[in-house]
């Protein structure tokens, strides 16, 4: 914990908060281009947010504090990981919260608040979305923790900074089957957690096929802005973790302030690359039927378990 660490933490917080909408824009743009469209441009989500912040917030009658508080809490649960996770620097002053399990749990907390808000409105769609989201969340947890397990076995700690530093010192580790399997498993759960295809279709208009969207149908104006923004940040955070847990090169470890700009650039590049890849892959996918999703998650769970297993039987 030092001045560089603090600076880095602030920097990556700003980076994630400011970059998340751009990432969403980039992904939409890639998708649009592959569909032969011109696309709305990378900065479109920012325009949407600006406009939403100006619009009129609406509280449906018969909803309670849970509905009002959810956007703020969701945003908070997205901001804290963005500040503590080793994206730009490994020396975050909030190391006490930079635990992989804690970060995962925080993101889950965000999902829960949104689900509660959806139930709070008492609409049928809200309940449906909440129920589905919770089902997916419950099935995703084991995979995440097993992947964490596989990653921390070789390091001997679940502290994010520790894992990243260990990988930096021993790059060959990354190509070991264990960490490759873990990477795939984490990628799958990232898709499931952030409601991308094939688990959920972020741009659907059919309520009956919705998971995430169904929960936010009642939100408008600034509330909606916070939710959209937070969802983008969650995606960024998870992709960032994926990037830095398996390819942490370029991150600032020392106390030199000069390393930070480079780190920022590299991190932005990595996440942008991952996002573009994900968006491109989505073009080839159709949404899974809801009850095929457990199959997908069971598969990722198996991969995670294999990751753990291989981490102790392949040398």
């Amino acid at each position, binding site marked *: 914990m030092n001045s560089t660490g603090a600076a880095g933490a602030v920097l990556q917080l700003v980076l994630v908060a400011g970059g998340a909408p751009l990432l969403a824009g980039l992904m939409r743009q890639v998708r649009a281009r592959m569909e032969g469209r011109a696309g*709305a441009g990378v900065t479109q989500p920012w325009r949407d947010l600006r406009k939403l912040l100006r619009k*009129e917030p*609406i509280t449906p009658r018969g909803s309670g504090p849970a509905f009002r508080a959810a956007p703020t809490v969701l945003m908070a649960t997205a901001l804290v990981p963005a500040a503590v996770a080793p994206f730009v620097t490994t020396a975050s002053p909030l190391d006490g919260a930079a635990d992989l399990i804690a970060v995962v749990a925080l993101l889950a907390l965000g999902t829960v608040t949104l689900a509660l808000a959806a139930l709070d409105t008492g609409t049928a769609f809200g309940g449906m979305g909440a129920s589905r989201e919770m089902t997916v969340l419950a099935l995703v947890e084991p995979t995440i923790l097993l992947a964490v397990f596989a990653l921390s076995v070789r390091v001997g700690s679940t502290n994010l900074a520790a894992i990243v530093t260990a990988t930096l010192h021993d790059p060959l580790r990354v190509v070991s089957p264990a960490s490759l399997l873990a990477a795939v498993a984490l990628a799958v759960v990232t898709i499931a957690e952030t409601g991308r295809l094939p688990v959920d279709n972020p741009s659907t208009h059919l309520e009956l096929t919705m998971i995430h969207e169904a929960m936010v149908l009642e939100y408008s104006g600034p509330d909606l802005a916070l939710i959209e923004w937070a969802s983008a940040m969650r995606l960024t955070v998870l992709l960032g973790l994926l990037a830095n847990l398996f390819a942490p090169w370029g991150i600032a470890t020392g106390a030199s302030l000069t390393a930070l700009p480079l780190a920022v650039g590299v991190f932005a590049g990595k996440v942008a690359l991952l996002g573009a890849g994900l968006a491109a892959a989505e*073009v*080839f996918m159709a949404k899974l039927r809801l009850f095929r999703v457990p199959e997908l998650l069971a598969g990722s769970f198996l991969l995670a378990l294999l990751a753990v297993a291989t981490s102790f039987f392949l040398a």
Partner: protein
Amino acid sequence: MRRLLGKIRRTGRVAEPPIPASEQPAPAAAAEFGGSVQIRHVDAGSCNGCEVEIASAFSPVYDAERYGARLVASPRHADVLLVTGPVTRNMADPLRRTYEATPEPKVVVALGDCARNCGVFAGGHGVIGPVSDVVPVDVEIAGCPPPPEAIVAALRNLTGR
């Protein structure tokens, strides 16, 4: 997958060159949109001709999304109500409720002649009148059905891009 990728490469970009925005002055509310317009489409009793045109306006060819317009699933998310068809008796209240559910600032677009003046359905059984009888209309798009170019032009006028 490989085949699809090849197809994508061969097809390339199908979007037509940009269509200029319509000349008619944009409503005051549109000033606050700043290049982003979320649209909720309400079918108040249309023959679905307009729906086909809307679909093609948002298709890759005309790609209205490139100007910052997007169709959304809930009026709470919407800035613009895109109303088609003459308002039938059963759709009057839903239309009012949709209008009431949309947060300020909001713009109502009456799309197609039916929406503007009941078109061929004027005086028909079950038709209670044009959209403007039920909710205040800010923009009208003529045509039966209006061509995608007209729709895109009107939307560009709203997004200001």
